[in-house]
């Protein structure tokens, strides 16, 4: 990090905080090992028809985020991007082809029911709703950390969230689901999905984290 701090102005256009985060992880034995463990699991073809084992992939992801200190994992997940290459790398952090996307997009309320039926997922979702309350004044700098913690807590569960694309100026987070076929619950469904896609608290927390890591890495 001493080297990267010295070359700030010249490399601005090419700078890639997500690549720096990968480097930091690779240089730490524990982080490299657990990152490699989930990547190889999520990237392992099961059969000609099955791209990967989503269950094993998500388990390995939970393992990574549970066991690796957030100094490494949050840097990978919330790296601040100023170009597409960086944002695409950020989107790829959780190996979305296996852990996030599916052929079909299920209904969001059906996905939520699935989560609520599981004690662990239900409590993590409750945490997320409590700590990333978009419409409360309580979401301030003090609770950013808790919001990021509970967002990350959902990764590897039925409600695994991710960046929807490689947009760097306006990153949008979402679940892999839609509100089609919600019937008379359409409004409820949209409201639930917006807790991810239009969550100002979460967005501010991620932005603040990005600014924060810049400060700590240049002061060290």
């Amino acid at each position, binding site marked *: 990090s001493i080297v990267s701090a010295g070359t700030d102005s010249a490399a601005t256009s090419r700078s890639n905080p997500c690549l720096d985060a990968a480097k930091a992880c*690779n240089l730490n034995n524990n982080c490299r090992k657990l990152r*490699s463990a989930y990547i190889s699991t999520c*990237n392992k073809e099961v059969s000609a028809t099955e791209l990967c084992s989503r269950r094993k992939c998500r388990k390995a992801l939970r393992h990574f985020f549970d066991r690796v200190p957030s100094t490494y994992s949050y840097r990978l997940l919330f790296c601040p991007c100023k170009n597409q290459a960086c944002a695409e790398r950020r989107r*790829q952090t959780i190996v979305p082809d296996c852990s996030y996307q599916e052929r079909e997009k299920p209904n969001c309320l059906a996905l939520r029911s699935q989560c609520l039926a599981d004690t662990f997922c239900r409590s993590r979702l409750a945490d997320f709703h409590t700590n990333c309350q978009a419409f409360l004044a309580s979401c301030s700098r003090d609770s950013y950390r808790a919001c990021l913690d509970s967002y990350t807590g959902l990764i590897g569960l039925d409600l695994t969230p991710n960046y929807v694309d490689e947009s760097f100026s306006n990153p949008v987070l979402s679940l892999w689901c839609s509100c089609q076929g919600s019937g008379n619950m359409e409004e409820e469904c949209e409201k639930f999905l917006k807790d991810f896609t239009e969550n100002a608290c979460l967005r501010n927390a991620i932005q603040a984290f990005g600014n924060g890591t810049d400060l700590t890495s240049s002061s060290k």
Partner: protein
Amino acid sequence: NRMKRAKARHKPCSLKELEVTISELGLGYNSDETVLFRYCSGTCDSAVRNYDVSLKHVRSMRKIRKEKVRARPCCRPLSYDDDVSFLDTGNRYYTVNEVSAKECGCV
């Protein structure tokens, strides 16, 4: 300079490390991700076995002539680091094994 070279030559076999990019490993992958490359370097003078002395002697008596033999121990990895995974420039993930040394020895 010669002092420096002589000193370096006498360093016993040990593990060293270097930060390199995946591309620089020359395995055919294109990625700017940096990894720690650990390798074995140093001499094995103190690890010469009776085997080496005997082999050298038998060879000098021209009893071994056609085969390629090595009468000196070699500083090589005894074990390798865990797998390394990375994202390449085409946004594909790869995992490679036995790239980096974990433990060195004179074998």
